[in-house]
């Protein structure tokens, strides 16, 4: 595990971020399952926006929807979902920072997320630069490559998210609390 990564965990550990997150998780009845559901609903919106757009670009879904119109419509929803998931996920990461920042699956999740977000920003930026940018014939294969990659990234982010807890369950005693 890279030192700067575990270092983030140590930085949060013992801070007000950790005490605040732990207080919220333990004192508000039902908070953990509720905030986890908010997190999964965020994933649902990512599926309905980013992933659906990728499927559209690959010609697999919603053929009547226009890529340019769809992109315009998806952007705000996708950003809101990502911000919402950043907040909902933070409660757990801040609550037990050293566990997350020592967990290689969490590191992979962040890496996949970075890949997905980078591709998304690139796609949206180019989209804004010219009307119908991604519908140009000579951009078709770039768009499809981005779609396949980002589809893979989003799936891996979701899978890794679920496996953080499993790895922790299997290997937790090896890590400091």
């Amino acid at each position: 595990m890279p030192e700067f990564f575990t270092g983030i965990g140590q930085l949060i550990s013992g801070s007000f971020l950790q005490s605040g997150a732990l207080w919220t998780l333990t004192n508000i009845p039902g908070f953990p399952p509720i905030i986890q559901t908010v997190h999964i609903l965020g994933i649902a919106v990512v599926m309905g926006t980013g992933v659906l757009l990728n499927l559209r670009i690959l010609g697999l879904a919603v053929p009547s929807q226009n890529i340019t119109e769809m992109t315009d419509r998806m952007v705000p929803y996708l950003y809101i979902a990502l911000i919402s998931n950043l907040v909902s996920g933070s409660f757990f990461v801040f609550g037990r920072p050293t566990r997350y920042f020592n967990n290689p699956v969490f590191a992979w999740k962040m890496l996949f997320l970075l890949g997905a977000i980078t591709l998304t920003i690139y796609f949206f930026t180019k989209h804004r630069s010219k009307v119908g940018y991604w519908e140009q014939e000579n951009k078709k294969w770039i768009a499809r490559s981005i779609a396949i990659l980002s589809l893979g990234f989003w799936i891996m982010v979701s899978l890794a998210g679920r496996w953080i807890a499993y790895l922790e369950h299997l290997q937790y005693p090896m890590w400091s609390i």
Partner: protein
Amino acid sequence: MISDFLRSTFWLDVEEWELSWTIGGTNWFPLLESIHVIAAAMVVGTILWVDLRLLGLGAIKYPITTLNRELVPWTWGAFIIATITGIGMFITRAASHVLNPAFQSKIVLLVLAGANMAYFHLILYKDIQQHETVISTSIQLKIAGSLSLFLWAGVMLAGRWIGHII
């Protein structure tokens, strides 16, 4: 009667199936759960646009029937995957699940979401043509759309809660 059914030893037998042991004792369980989460997110993510359209809040450029035709097959496909993976996890601890209030709520909410969907497709859909291209749909369609959103979110919440009780 329902209590007898839920407390029946059948559920304990289910847990003893070879398949239940295989899933419960190997990485099959986390794998099924991961797929379950992605499939469930896909169910909600795709039906979301139909519901938003019914409410006049999103995808308003497209006729309801077009969205329905192109999105609902994805919803169903994802739902089938979620059901198979869900049953796979259920059988590993069937007897505890049937008595788990979160699991029971999830099943009730699923039935309600299904009933709402059936009402929309079998009753409201007959007159869909007149709302086809208008942004502001009838109050009935708006109710069906919002019920769908709330019920599916409820299914997710109850589903997530199962793991906190068991």
